[in-house]
């Protein structure tokens, strides 16, 4: 007991010293408290107020994020006794997360079905704001404990969001599947973590001991542990083979929730994966578990499984779910370069994917609101009835496919060039396979993305005059995103120079 006393002051000053670097998260916590208090005080009718507070708060958080750039000019910072690592990429990721969650916070209410939820939306905002804290932690976590905690945090919030519409059978079913799958995955991951801890004797990934000690243990054992951990991360990233839950859950959840699930946790999980692999990949004597090989193989399989399975879908949300899986695979491609260039390509790609995917789901939501349709076959001829929304849909899908001139294309280009430049150095055949698969699946992606414009514009049908429950907000949101996608497509250096 005595041996810890001398350390206490050090530890405390460390914790206190970390707080200035932790301002955005503290603000989020405060925001969380504010929202929850509002929720409790004003009851279920407080949704609008909660939303306002949450959105305003997110803006502040974004400002706080921006301020952090100045703090890390001299390099990365370990916070709270190496629980977290704050560095440039993390801030960029946080900005992306905050920006997207800001959009999502705006968006939740515009879904007619979610809005009609009898129990009100104020709890939803509470959960979302809370989850943003989890996401921030996830991005910065470099300790096995903080990693696990952050993942659980986000998962828990996600379970709640998916099952949020408790009166809806689909939503609940999706929630059940999600929670069972998620909890099992996290159990598997925890077991992997426990093994890593056992073999390495520390939870701190960046302490320098971890990789060094693990390198001395039997590679098979270590590999097993890492595989189990990856399975857990894979659940969040939804890569093969941990992707099975994705379509069902995406379909079952309310559309804005799907938009949440398909972007935020995934993007944060990429940051987490980067943090997780970095100590191993950059440890010179690391042997045994070849991250590049495994992640490449997973990337290829994910691209194939996601894109090919999407071809057969006709439910728009399900289709976008599968395509999201495909995009994960593609982003993995950027990750396996393990270079700064690859990382910036990754962040750019993820941001563009996030924006486009939210817009796509928002538009799907729009049609769902307006016509009550979820199946792409029912989109027949609607392009003439809702021209702006349809054109936006096309633009967004172009970006998702990765055709010029859209931000999706430049993202793809950056990823390709990042991978290529590594390939040029080491001629790793896996990288080549990734490139080819990436190109090939782009064509396949067109197969299914094109169904939307095909039905919107090409198929003709007598227009059934129905009552239009127009949601202008959704159209405005997606139009803005679409315009942004095109502008970033033409002038990507507006953005990527910060990444």
């Amino acid at each position: 007991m005595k041996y810890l006393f001398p350390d206490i002051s050090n530890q405390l000053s460390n914790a206190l010293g970390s707080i200035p670097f932790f301002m955005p998260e503290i603000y989020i916590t405060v925001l969380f408290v504010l929202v929850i208090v509002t929720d409790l005080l004003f009851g279920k009718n407080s949704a609008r107020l909660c939303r306002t507070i949450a959105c305003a708060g997110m803006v502040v958080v974004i400002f706080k994020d921006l301020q952090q750039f100045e703090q890390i000019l001299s390099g990365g910072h370990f916070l709270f006794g190496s629980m977290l690592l704050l560095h440039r990429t993390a801030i960029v990721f946080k900005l992306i997360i905050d920006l997207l969650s800001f959009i999502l916070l705006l968006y939740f209410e515009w879904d007619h079905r979610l809005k009609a939820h009898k129990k009100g939306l104020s709890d939803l905002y509470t959960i979302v704001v809370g989850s943003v804290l989890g996401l921030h932690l996830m991005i910065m976590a470099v300790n096995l404990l903080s990693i696990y905690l952050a993942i659980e945090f986000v998962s828990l919030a996600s379970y709640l969001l998916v099952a949020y519409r408790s009166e809806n059978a689909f939503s609940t079913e999706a929630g059940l599947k999600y929670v069972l799958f998620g909890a099992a995955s996290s159990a598997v991951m925890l077991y992997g973590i426990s093994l890593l801890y056992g073999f390495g004797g520390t939870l701190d990934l960046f302490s320098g001991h971890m990789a060094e000690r693990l390198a001395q243990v039997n590679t098979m054992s270590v590999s097993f542990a890492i595989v189990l951990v990856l399975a857990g991360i894979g659940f969040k990233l939804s890569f093969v083979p941990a992707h099975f839950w994705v379509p069902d859950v995406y379909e079952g959840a309310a559309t804005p929730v799907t938009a949440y699930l398909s972007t935020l946790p995934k993007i944060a999980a990429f940051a987490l994966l980067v943090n997780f692999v970095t100590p191993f990949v950059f440890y010179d004597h690391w042997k045994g578990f070849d991250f590049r090989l495994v992640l490449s193989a997973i990337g290829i399989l994910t691209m194939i499984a996601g894109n090919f399975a999407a071809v057969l879908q006709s439910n728009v949300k399900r289709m976008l779910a599968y395509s999201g899986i495909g995009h994960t695979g593609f982003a993995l491609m950027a990750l396996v370069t393990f270079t700064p260039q690859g990382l910036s390509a990754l962040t750019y790609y993820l941001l563009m994917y996030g924006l486009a995917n939210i817009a796509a789901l928002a538009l799907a939501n729009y049609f769902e609101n307006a016509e009550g349709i979820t199946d792409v076959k029912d989109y027949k001829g609607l392009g003439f009835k809702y021209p702006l929304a349809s054109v936006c849909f096309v633009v967004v899908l172009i970006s998702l496919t990765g055709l010029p001139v859209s931000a999706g294309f430049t993202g793809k280009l950056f990823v390709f060039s990042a991978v290529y430049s590594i390939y040029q150095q080491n001629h790793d055949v896996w990288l080549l396979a990734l490139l080819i698969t990436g190109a090939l699946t782009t064509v396949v992606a067109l197969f299914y993305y094109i169904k939307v414009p095909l039905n919107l514009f090409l198929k003709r049908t007598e227009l059934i005059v129905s009552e239009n429950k127009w949601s202008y907000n959704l159209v405005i949101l997606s139009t803005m995103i679409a315009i942004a996608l095109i502008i970033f497509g033409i002038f990507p250096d507006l953005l990527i120079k910060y990444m």
Partner: protein
Amino acid sequence: MNKALPYQDIQTVCFAIAAVVLPFAAFVINFLFLGKSKLSGWVSTVAILVSSILSVIVFTRVWNVQQIHVKHLWFIIGDNTLYTGILLNNLSVLMLGLVSVIALPVHIYSTAYMKDDAGYSRYFQYLSFFCFSMLALVVMDNLILLYAFWELVGFSSYLLIGFWFDRATAVQANKKAFIINRIGDIGLLTAIIILFNQYHTFDIAQLFKDGGLIASSTINNGLWISGTTLTPVVWQYIACIGIFLGVAAKSAQFPLHTWLPDAMEGPTSVSALIHAATMVAAGVFLLGRVYPLFNEAELTTLAVIGCFTAFMAATIALTQNDLKRILAYSTISQLGYMVMAMGIGAYATSLFHLVTHAFFKCLLFLSAGIVIHQIKHIKEDNHLNIDPQDIANMGGLRKKLPLTFIATLIGGLALIGLPLTSGYLSKEGILVQAFEWAEHKGSAYMLLPVLASITSWLTAFYVARLILKVFYGDMHLLTLHPGIKIHIGDGGWRYKLPLVLLSLCCLFPLFSLNPLSHTQSWLLYGLSSYKGYTESIFEIIVPVVVNVLSLVVMYYAYIIYIKQSIWVSSQTGLLYRISFNEWYIDRFYNCVVVKFVLALSDMTFWFDRKVIDGFVNLLEKIGVFIAGIASWCDRYIVDGILHLSAAIVQAIGGFARRFQNGKVQYYLFSMLLAVIVVFILKILIWN
């Protein structure tokens, strides 16, 4: 490139250009301004009149005087500069004159012949366009332009054959003509490309002049060498074959001759000009242009093919009943003569025959045109359902159409080659030289002149048959349809004048003062080095034998067709005097020769119809068949692969989707199984 030419020459060149361009101007005027007007005929006629006058002037200035070659930059491609220019030498001015002079009467004739046709103006547009192309063809100085006009001539022929485009047969015929001509064109084009590849120029003067590029190239060790270019010698043969294909298609040589008889679907005046006198002679002209290219063996092949064509066509002509078809086959036959003459080295004589043939064949066609026209009148007046071209319907027209009869007679005699006609001069020239050539080459080659002579007799026979059936005897129509009204005559001056003009041109004075000796024709001295072989006995024997036998054959024909009986004929002299043998010869004639010839004729005709045409049809069938296969491949294999890949995508997608059965435990199981199996596999592979 234009060196300072003397004023005189510049003028000559201008005349030549004007002669070529005038018909084109007429074409343009007719096309743009005289859509339906009857004036168009006269515009064309005047154009060709001026053109022919200018041509004659040019002819007199150039013939045996000089060679004029002017050229102007056309375009540059890569390192090659292409010029467009005209080359006026004896050959080209001869053709220039010939074409325009022949075209003139045909134009005049046409103004009358076509006057009731709805497409009158269109007809003259085409005709002028043809004249332009043909005239340009003969004066062009480079192969690529020669080829260009060569095709344009074919094109205008296509237009004219299909002039009555609402007739299915006409359209069929013009398509056939064009496609067969295209085969020849492709050959010619290939040849031109080969020559270009070999000599890097298209210039005819440079290529074919004495000591020109062709002359200075050699064939050595299987290589064709000229300058720095080495090509396997086979390409020299292919070039020759290509040119021959071009010649054969245009000049209707075996085996590409079948389009010509069908081409008679066009107006008769067109047949006269294009398919008898000018265009079909373009092949022979081309041979004349590129003559130095051919070597001994190739020439011999040419001779054999020409001879065979001549013989074959003549036998076919024996039994035809369609007036124009007989003439068409005779044209083929005569063209065969010319080609053969080229083959045996009788370059000049061949061209000589070309000229004479142009006149008399044109004359024959125009006469036939009148006959057909008149019969058509009868048909229309009496509402008969007959073929106006069938000679079986005719007969005894000599009194009704006296001028036509005389013209036909002159033309026919010239075709047979009887003395005093121009045909005699050129044809005997060919035969004599053929014999001399054969003697020179060896006895096996004797077959060629003999066959040619037989052809000559056959010619005599069918010409006699034609004239006798059409103009002698009784009108068969009257016997078939008694009581029909017949009001026919030679027609106005626009019919008569051309006939008279052409008839005059078919007689000997135009070509030689000595009606019996072909060697004295001025034409021959203007054309290349007529070397001739040693003065031989053939000079005398051949004309005599050939002509006498021709007369016999004609008489025989007379017996057959007018007296209707060979038995009768045997009583009237010649054969009767040698009684016993006479019988034998008669029988021989009857049983062997006539039957044989008839059978042969039937056979060759059958061969022509079934085998050669059949071959062409077969080619078409094969083409269509291949097209079918290609189309099938396209639909099922190439597209099939596309669909297959779509199916594969679906299959993989279906596989990936199979796991999505909605059971969360199954998902978990799949995931965990995948994790562990992959891990185990990896371990196994590691160790």
